[in-house]
């Protein structure tokens, strides 16, 4: 383990992160709210901590190894969550305990979108902005951002990039240089954010709300500046814009990159994961809309359609915006949506969940077993599109799946042990591990009523979900620390 290199990068990243405390100060000044001081304090504290960590080892120039990459990413996300909590903890409005601050910060960074705050509409704008901004930074990944702007990461950048980006196959680079790849991803991300902002604005939001919601939409986060989330605006146009951008942000960003680079869109339809993603969204939306219409939940047919579509896309992509309280919907609908969040978005997107491609591979293996029963001596590779998937990747998918199930079970039991009822515990774990946000039962609108131990479990769950379990879990294995 190259401790000094890890320490140096950690310090640098922390100093970089401290800069993100400055925009809220600007917001605070523009809207003359009283919350600027906590941000300045947090900025100085974070910057200074980073400096203290970085300074003693600033000359360390070794290459980052594979293990160091894991360590940097996992520890950085934990440290980041903690420092990100500072403004919440220091501000007077709202008064927040440490655990609540940490929860809010982690929920933001991991793009979960579960909140412990009520009365959002009355909070200072700077605090609201900061929450949205956390989601935006966490969406594409703050380490990917660092790789883009700090060229010194070089080869080690690949190790970091791999440890942070979601999906089973992480070796595909968009450009030869990792820095350029990271930049390209952030450009695409930025372009989406800007178009989404303009869309929201044209549909009737104010600038502040437009930018804020664009942040959490393209990050597939789910934080809002209003208690009623997107439902606050009562606008079908806004709902549909949100649906479109949630859908787009759940697609693998390398597809967007190619679309932008070569000005073509036909490659979307050729991508097997994209097709599966669209198919799943269509099926889920159709079931929800048809059920709502059949049961006549809303008087107007249009309402059934819009709310059905919106909730299906929002929950299935793990965003977590709400227009209506879907946990009150009849029959299996609420649980169906929670189940859909296990699938989540595509690999290489900002969405959570287990990712469409993993489910696709698992499904294809199921199909293969059936074929094998019929043709016992057939050689049947698992194929994605035209090419066979390497056995290693398929194995890794199963490994991921089993660990996911075990972690889920363990967290579910732990949550119930803290006193939550089964529905609440189940949906709370799903909401955090899938980086979804809202759950069912007591956590339908947020985690404010949940006890502290359950909040800690939720924080761990969010982090596990964002780093796709293994990056974090690997640090807790003896093998990792053995020399």
């Amino acid at each position, binding site marked *: 383990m190259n401790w000094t290199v890890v320490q140096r990068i950690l310090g640098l990243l922390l100093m970089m992160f401290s800069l993100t405390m400055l925009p809220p100060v600007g917001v605070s000044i523009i809207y003359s709210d009283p919350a600027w001081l906590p941000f300045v304090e947090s900025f100085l504290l974070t910057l200074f901590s980073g400096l203290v960590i970085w300074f003693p080892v600033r000359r360390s120039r070794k290459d980052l190894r*594979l293990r160091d990459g894991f360590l940097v990413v996992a520890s950085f996300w934990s440290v980041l969550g903690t420092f990100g909590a500072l403004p919440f903890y220091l501000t007077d409005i709202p008064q927040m305990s440490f655990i609540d601050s940490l929860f809010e910060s982690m929920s933001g960074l991991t793009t979960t979108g579960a909140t412990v705050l009520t009365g959002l509409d009355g909070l200072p704008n700077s605090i609201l902005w900061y929450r949205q901004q956390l989601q935006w930074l966490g969406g594409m990944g703050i380490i990917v951002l660092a790789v883009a702007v700090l*060229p010194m990461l*070089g*080869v080690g*950048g*690949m190790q970091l990039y791999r440890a942070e980006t979601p999906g089973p196959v992480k*070796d595909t*680079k968009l*450009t*030869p*240089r*990792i*820095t*350029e790849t990271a930049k390209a991803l952030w450009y695409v991300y930025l372009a989406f954010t800007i178009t989404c902002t303009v869309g929201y604005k044209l549909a009737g939001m104010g600038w502040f709300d437009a930018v804020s919601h664009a942040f959490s939409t393209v990050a597939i986060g789910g934080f809002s500046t209003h208690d009623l989330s997107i439902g606050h605006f009562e606008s079908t146009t806004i709902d549909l814009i949100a649906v479109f951008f949630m859908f787009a942000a759940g697609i693998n960003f390398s597809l967007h990159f190619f679309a932008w680079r070569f000005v073509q869109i036909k490659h979307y339809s050729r991508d097997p994961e994209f097709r599966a993603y669209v198919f799943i969204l269509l099926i889920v939306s159709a079931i929800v809309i048809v059920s709502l219409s059949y049961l006549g939940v809303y008087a107007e047919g249009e309402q059934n359609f819009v709310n059905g579509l919106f909730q299906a896309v929002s929950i299935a992509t793990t965003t977590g915006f709400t227009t209506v309280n879907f946990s009150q919907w009849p029959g299996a609908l609420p649980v169906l949506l929670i189940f859909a969040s296990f699938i989540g978005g595509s690999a290489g997107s900002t969405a959570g969940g287990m990712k469409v491609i993993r489910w696709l591979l698992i499904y294809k293996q199921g199909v293969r077993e059936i074929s094998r029963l019929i043709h016992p001596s057939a050689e049947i590779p698992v194929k994605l599109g035209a090419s066979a998937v*390497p056995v290693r990747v398929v194995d890794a998918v199963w490994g991921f799946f089993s660990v996911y199930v075990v972690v889920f079970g363990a967290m579910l039991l732990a949550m119930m042990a803290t006193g939550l009822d089964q529905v609440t515990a189940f949906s709370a774990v799903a909401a955090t591990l899938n980086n979804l946000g809202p759950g069912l039962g007591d956590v339908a609108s947020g985690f404010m009523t949940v006890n502290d131990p359950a909040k800690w479990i939720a924080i761990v769950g969010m982090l596990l979900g964002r780093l796709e379990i293994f990056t974090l879990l690997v640090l807790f294995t003896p093998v990792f620390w053995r020399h």
Partner: protein
Amino acid sequence: MKILILGAGQVGSSAAYHLSREEANEVTVVDTSAEVLRDLQDRLDIRTVVGNGAYPDVLERAGASDADIIVALTDSDETNMVACQVAYTLHHTPTKIARIRSADYMNAKKLFTQDAIPVDVRISPEQLVCEYVEQLILYPGALQVLEFANGRVRLVGARADRDGLLVGQQIAALKEHIPNTEGRIAAIYRNGKSIEPDGDTVIQEGDEIFFVAARQDVRVFMSEMRKLEDPVRRVVIAGGGNIGLRLALALEQTNNVKLIERDPVRARIISEQLNKAIVLVGDAADEELLLEENIDNVDVFCALTNAEEANILSAMLSKRLGAHKVMALINRPSYAELVESGSIDIAISPQQVTIGSLLAHVRRGDVVKVHSLKRGTAEAIEAVAHGTAEESQVVGRKVEEIDLPRGAAIIALARGDKVIIAHHDTVIETDDHVILFLTDRRQIERLENLFQVGVSFV
């Protein structure tokens, strides 16, 4: 510069390593083995594409449409040639470099035109290595002999020993020792670190010295550094592969050459091609065989088989049995470092020999030749100065007036047929071939800028 490398073998991966560590290059490597590529991508900041490099579809995926250079280094000559042709036909790739092993192709110069097989530069690592070894045999005592300006200027690396006339004296004394010979010490490495030589520097025993001189003066100069060795007469080559055979062919007229080859069939084939050299069938690490062939009288033993471990062992064995000088072909840089200071006199690294000819085409400005030295940390460069005094930052200036980056030195000029050893007051003219020595490779970009005829300086 966007560079496409086909083939991730020894040469391919070392080319990727050298090229990708220069900030300005974007390197994509294509190979058929996904595993090799994964390992490579873990170590280097490059993009990799799995597939046959000659296929249009694979080239397209690897970004051939905007590549500046395609370097085809796969095992197969045919694949390399087709890849260049495909890249040129479909993507108009400006510079196409291919590794061509077969001498038959190499000799058919007419083949490589834009409308037949558009390969701009043909590299044969075997030939380069063979020439390299030939030079070392020609100049006994040299660790490295590099040619510039079509062979008129030579840069020679040698280790100073007790018997060198200059050892223990200041460099300035050189003028008194050999007043009529022009030459210059370009760099000195002491204990592996470079020290900047000036007139007062005292040469010590064990220093690794690089000096530049006209071809005919090299031997005189060498005597200043170490005891002059007798010309090599008896050479034993282990390994009758491409390199071994080429070397034997090149040396058999002037030297007494024996070649050891393990495979009887191969031995038969090469014995038919050789006229004077003796081909021995057997194992190069067979003590009996070596003794029988009077290894203790041999001037140079070259282990040139494909297996580097076998090369190291047979070279060490020959050294112990009394061979005067042993050389071994070693691919892995770490092995080379291990053995070179000890029992093996010279470790020959095919990658390092080959990479220079690639680097020359990647450099901006009119760079004719690049030699990579000291495992890629240093470089010797031949660049042509263009433009007028107003346009160029070098033309019309004295050497001392040129704003060279740290660790860089202008050591010689080739002007027409003349060789000029650079002094502080030598004035550079347009079209001069300027030979530079760069001990700190990281300054390469500044050096490139210097030799570009920049619009900004008009």
